């Protein structure tokens, strides 16, 4: 068949125009908006506000997302490792059934689940009290920064474990079996043989998780009450309470730099290894 390049491009054009018009254009608008006042004059006020009011929140955001990402990575590797190395078919089957539950649950529903579960009178504390692990008066609400981390890890581990377990399952089993024959323990096989072989998948998964969690608005609003809070909440607050697009966009630029720097670290690392994905 003769190929008409113009027609090929026209086939892609409508979809591409949607991305340009409704994503790239507002993105550019956002970057420019960080340096402009309401009536369009240049200003540094947005960044001054960010520095004076939101430095703590930026640090808080970085710490929360970083801790959550690390925990997601550890949980995903443990789940994947158990699925590959587990010897009891019943337990492996159970975990396979179990870990996917939060996968399709939206963040906003995860937020509501955690609001109930982690509350002072939530199912978690009540279960601990019933088991005699805690006295009723010792219970405390986890609806703060800890709750945000728990909610993120709960929701995002399912996604990460799905990708990581998939990569682990498709590994050549001969090296694993060789190590087993030589008497290596399973934790050692996981850390020294399996994880190094899937580190590309793990890295991609963690970068995606970091960026995803960075842009979630509902969970910190619903679970993380009080101050400090995450910068997505601050952005919504500047818009809803003050109509202050300058500061909100300056905060937006900070979140883009955060996301971009993680992607950059990943790209640089994988380029150095000579196998970019």
């Amino acid at each position: 068949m003769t190929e008409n390049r113009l027609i090929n491009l026209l086939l892609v054009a409508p979809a591409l125009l949607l991305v340009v018009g409704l994503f790239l254009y507002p993105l550019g608008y956002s970057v420019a908006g960080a340096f402009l006042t309401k009536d369009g004059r240049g200003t540094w006020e947005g960044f001054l506000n960010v520095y004076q009011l939101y430095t703590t929140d930026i640090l808080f955001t970085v710490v929360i997302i970083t801790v959550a990402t690390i925990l997601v990575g550890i949980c995903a590797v443990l789940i994947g490792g158990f699925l590959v190395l587990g010897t009891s078919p019943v337990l492996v089957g159970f975990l396979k059934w179990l870990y996917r539950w939060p996968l399709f649950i939206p963040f906003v529903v995860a937020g509501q689940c955690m609001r109930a579960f982690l509350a002072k009178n939530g199912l978690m504390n009540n279960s601990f009290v019933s088991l005699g692990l805690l006295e009723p008066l010792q219970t405390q609400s986890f609806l703060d920064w800890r709750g945000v981390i728990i909610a993120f890890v709960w929701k995002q581990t399912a996604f990460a474990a799905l990708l990581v377990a998939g990569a682990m399952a498709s590994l050549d089993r001969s090296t694993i079996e060789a190590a087993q024959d030589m008497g290596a323990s399973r934790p050692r096989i996981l850390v020294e043989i399996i994880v190094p072989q899937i580190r590309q998948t793990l890295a991609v998964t963690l970068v995606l998780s970091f960026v995803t969690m960075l842009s979630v608005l509902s969970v910190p609003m619903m679970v993380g009450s009080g101050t400090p809070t995450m910068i997505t909440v601050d952005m919504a607050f500047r818009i809803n309470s003050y109509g202050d697009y300058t500061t909100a966009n300056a905060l937006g630029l900070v979140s883009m730099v955060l996301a971009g720097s993680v992607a950059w670290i990943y790209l640089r690392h994988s380029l150095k290894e000579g196998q970019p994905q």
Partner: protein
Amino acid sequence: MRPARLVLQGLILGIAAFFILGPIVNLALWAVAEQWFFPHKLPLVYGFKYWETVFRPTGDALASLVTSILIALWTVVACLAVSIPAGYALARRSLPFRALLMLAFLLPQAFPSVAVYINVARIFYGLGLNGTIAGVVLVHTVHALVYSVWITTAAFAAVDRDLEAAARDLGAAPLRVFATVTLPLAAPGVIASAIFVFLESLDEFTGTYFVGVPDVTTLPLLMFNASMQGNYQIASITALILLVPSIGFMLVVERFLKADVLAKVGA
């Protein structure tokens, strides 16, 4: 394996199950709790009183459900309308910078979205699109494009070229080959992409929060508002309604998304 080790593993999995399923169980309890307060560990009175409130024909929840489904269906239509031609071209035609084009559809998902949404809302305000169904559909469409474009591309790429060639040899025009051979063979993948788009739209919160206000209230927004007002019963029931299609689709999606298509997603 030694029994002690098996018991230990079972215990660890039991703790994992508590933390994974506990929040969902707690949600379900709130949905059927008519009275529940400190220090009682379980609801005092169970019942479906709040379900009647939610499903009252004049209630907000039913209206939100209809709005949500309407928006999700329009989002599916919009996504497929642009993704079927794009997916076909990306799978079968030579395009300059193909990898970059594929990446472009991922960007709206892989970028901190709040900054983008507040500016979309600002632009839409000038166009009169804020607080309209059309505005929310547009925002959802861009967000879901990565699923529809990537999966339809994979679906078209998995169609056997020989079948298309055979149809052409029998004298069928290119458009006819596409409509009678390529598209029907790719249909399961296209349906799978539609399912992903539908779910993505149904569950979307952040974009609707900024662009939908004040007139468009979808189910996730209704849930959020009920929760923030402390009305845990209404919030939990709404959350459960949102979970039904998610879990239902999770169970059927494997039927449509076959391994040969899945292996080509993103390639």
